[in-house]
């Protein structure tokens, strides 16, 4: 039965999916360069949504997203590359893996399941940690993934680029991935598990006292987040066609966290808004670096190369300084004119 209440509940999801589709349709009318940028932005969206599923709902710092992305990317790559390409680039693979060539969809599923399995294995002890200790533990996880993948030469090619991946991700595939991620994250955050997890975010002790199994709820979100991160890695790998472990290191890890916090880590809308804001800003700054022709004068104004990066960092700092709760401020997007839904929770714990 679909009644008015159900529809109202689904409004944020529909609006966010609409936003993603609008971005895709707009990009479809533009040139190939813009299309590739938007595709990359949508892949980043999948990664940030995966980060939101755990960090947004639990309030626990998490740096491990890029590590799970890397695991997903390499899993899918190894399962979908042609045996001939594997023989060239990875001569030391075990025989069964060297011969395997799955359908891209099966490879993508494996690219989500392998990180999820890893998260399920390493998660239970780490989920006991909170605050800065959790941040350091997940940061350590990310380093371990980076170091192991970067040195396991027979499996990943080590420090060298792994080439010859089938390229099947374009604008529409990435859009599909982004909508899938947003829908999964939304469906999850409507469950009672996610509500229990958000309760523990607001006040861990009170949540425990009312019977929330904090460690178990965090683990559910952690594994689901790892699955989505793996999907982001798969999309990234089969968009570029080459893989380097360096692509899954500190820079993207910081970028994803910055996107989430700038948008507002406490709502799915925030995750989407952060990706949109920073992607658009990056793009505008890149354009000014190439040069903007002033109308009717023939003069091209261009900023010196490198200034765009400076401006981007400065803009992020300013957003955090003036809007520390992020662009969305913990609320979900709603239709204009409606009273605010119950998405806004009062902050219960005062922090210094």
């Amino acid at each position, binding site marked *: 039965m679909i009644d008015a209440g159900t529809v109202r509940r689904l409004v944020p999801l529909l609006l966010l999916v609409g936003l993603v589709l609008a971005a895709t349709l707009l990009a479809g009318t533009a040139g190939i360069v813009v299309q590739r940028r938007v595709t990359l932005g949508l892949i980043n969206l999948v990664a940030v949504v995966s980060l939101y599923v755990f960090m947004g709902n639990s309030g626990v*710092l998490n740096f491990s997203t890029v590590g799970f992305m890397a695991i997903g990317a390499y899993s899918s790559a190894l399962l979908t590359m042609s045996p001939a390409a594997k023989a060239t680039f990875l001569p030391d693979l075990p025989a069964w893996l060297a011969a395997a060539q799955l359908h891209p969809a099966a490879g993508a599923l494996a690219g989500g399941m392998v990180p999820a399995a890893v998260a399920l294995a390493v998660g239970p002890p780490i989920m006991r940690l909170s605050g800065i200790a959790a941040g350091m533990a997940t940061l350590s996880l990310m380093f371990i993934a980076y*170091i192991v993948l970067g*040195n396991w030469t027979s499996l990943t090619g080590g420090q060298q680029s792994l080439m010859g991946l089938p390229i099947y991700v374009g604008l529409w595939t990435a859009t599909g991935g982004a909508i899938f991620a947003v829908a999964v994250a939304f469906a999850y955050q409507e469950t009672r598990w996610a509500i229990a997890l958000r309760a523990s975010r607001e006040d861990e002790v009170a949540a425990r006292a009312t019977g929330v199994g904090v460690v178990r709820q965090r683990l559910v979100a952690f594994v689901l987040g790892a699955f989505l991160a793996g999907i982001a890695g798969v999309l990234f790998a089969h968009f570029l066609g080459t893989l380097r472990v360096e692509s899954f290191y500190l820079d993207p890890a910081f970028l994803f966290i910055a996107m989430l916090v700038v948008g507002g880590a406490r709502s799915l809308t925030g995750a989407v808004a952060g990706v949109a804001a920073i992607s658009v800003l990056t793009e505008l700054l890149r354009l000014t670096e190439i040069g903007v022709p002033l109308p009717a004068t023939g003069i091209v104004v261009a900023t010196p190369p490198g200034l765009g*990066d*400076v401006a*981007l*960092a400065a803009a992020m700092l300013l957003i955090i300084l003036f809007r520390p709760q992020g662009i969305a401020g913990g609320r979900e997007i709603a239709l204009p004119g409606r009273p605010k839904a119950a998405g806004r929770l009062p902050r219960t714990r005062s*922090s210094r």
Partner: protein
Amino acid sequence: MTANAIQILVDALSVGGLYALTSLGIGLIFSVMRLANFAHAEFVTVPAYVMFALSGHPALMSIGAAVLTAVALALAVERIAFRPLRRVDPAAMLVASFAVSMLLQKLLVFAVGSRIVPLDPLPMLGEAIRFGGVQVSALKLVTILACVVLLAALTWFLRRTRFGLEMRAAAENFTMSRLLGVRANRVIAIAFALSGVLAAVVAVLFSAQTGFVQPRLGVQLVIVGFVATVIGGLGSLFGAAVGGLAVGAAATLLQAFLPPELRPFREAFLFAAVILVLLVRPQGLFPARGLKERV
């Protein structure tokens, strides 16, 4: 064999000493304002570039300029970026410190380029010293000596001066110390200034060991420093120093004693050990008093 053992010991102590100074710089700020300051990396990198700009001048002058720059930078960052966020949640402060770190790093890339430039701030220490049959690098000995002196000076400052007392009080209970007359802005500014001094010393010693500067010089160092601070017990300065020493020593020992085929994975073992320590003692080896949340 003994010669080899002494070499390894000197290596372990000099690496561990640098990490200890880094983690102390991070720990000082964390203990008073609960900020995990990623921008500490640039407190190291920027003075290293100042020394590069002044290379050719007397070593003492460039080192002095480096220390002054680091202190000024630390104070400015505190005033501009962190003071407005003091009352907001720690995650926002953490991300603000990323943003500051990125901003400074990109400014460096913009101003001087991202390529590696050579730097030797302490050319007189290039020689090795011989004790009997043992050869030890003078630079490493000086590093160890500098770390010991700085640790002693810092201990004296914290235990014997008024500002040190205020800092320890603020670390234990910030609100209470304010009620008793400690000025919040002053005590935080002192923490940042001290952190800047430590970072500048690390810049001198670390760039002398590596022989170059690049815009990401401080990043790897600070990440290890962070890990060390957490292992030692966030908020505890003694813990930070011990943690830094332990991580540096563990890295050196793993490098020396792991079988060669596992050596590339050395740091993976290190970080796995970090997770293990955190699981057994989430508050670190030497938990700070007053950090545990009361209910």
